[in-house]
């Protein structure tokens, strides 16, 4: 599968990342201060970032599957991003929300923050890796216990 990837696959992913990161820079979401002014409800502009982005993806996700059945570079079908709902979505949302409210950072904006030269954000990225690691180790253990007869 990996060996058979279309030669344009990585370049397209890279260009997508460039647009994504440029947008986070342009919208000032790469600056934790600006995100915090939103969460403190003194500048609600962030709503337009999220809705602006979701509007573009909504049109894309709605239109493209009606024009084509499979993606040109992978041959896979166009699915929707539908994750199963359970208690974990709420629990995770609460933990994520506390972290976001404390720091003003989320994964995408933290990567972009490094791009605008904000080197103190390395602390935030290190924290995110640590958090994902702790959760993953704990979850891996839980799964292996669950698999025992």
């Amino acid at each position: 599968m990996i060996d058979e990837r279309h030669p344009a696959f990585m370049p397209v992913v890279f260009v997508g990342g460039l647009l994504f990161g440029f947008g986070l820079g342009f919208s000032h979401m790469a600056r934790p201060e600006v995100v915090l002014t939103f969460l403190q409800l003194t500048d609600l502009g962030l709503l337009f970032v999220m809705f602006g982005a979701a509007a573009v993806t909504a049109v894309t996700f709605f239109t493209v599957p009606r024009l084509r059945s499979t993606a040109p570079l992978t041959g896979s079908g166009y699915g929707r991003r539908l994750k199963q709902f359970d208690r974990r979505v709420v629990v995770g949302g609460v933990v994520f929300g506390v972290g976001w409210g404390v720091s003003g950072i989320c994964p995408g904006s933290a990567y972009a923050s490094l791009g605008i030269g904000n080197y103190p954000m390395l602390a935030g990225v290190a924290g995110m890796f640590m958090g994902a690691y702790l959760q993953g180790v704990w979850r891996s253990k839980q799964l292996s216990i669950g698999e025992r007869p």
Partner: protein
Amino acid sequence: MIEAALQALAGVEQLFPHGIYRYAVGGVFVGLGVAVIYVATGISAGASTFLESTLSWVSDGSRFQRYTASRDWRVVFTLGIVLGAAVYAVIYQGGIWTTEVQLWRLFFGGVLVGIGTRIGKGCTSGHGVCGVGSASRTSFVGVAVFLLVAIGTAQIVMAAGVTP
């Protein structure tokens, strides 16, 4: 009547002290980034799985290993995000910008963000942009929860006098 309408308009303007242009335009670019990848590959890319998929190089936990197939392109996507923001900085910022937010807030908040996004199956881009764009009810709930909790937390942190 007109006066009341103008007052209401001024009230709305106060909620957007920097206008909406940069936010809306930036958001459209974020959406375009996701859209380009989706059209070409059928993948709806979020930012947070990169954390787990990259950890699969250093840990053989089953939770990380299930992402080995996507870990290489997720690195490329993330490098693109960093460089895309750097392009913005070169054109509009003219030099580096550093935050005043204290390091412990970035680190501690980062740890919780890292844990939370992985428990909750998505982050602000996965749920907020891809999920909401897919009209996923799970993502609507996820976004509502983390948005409200984050606002509450930021209010408490501010009230406790932590600045910046």
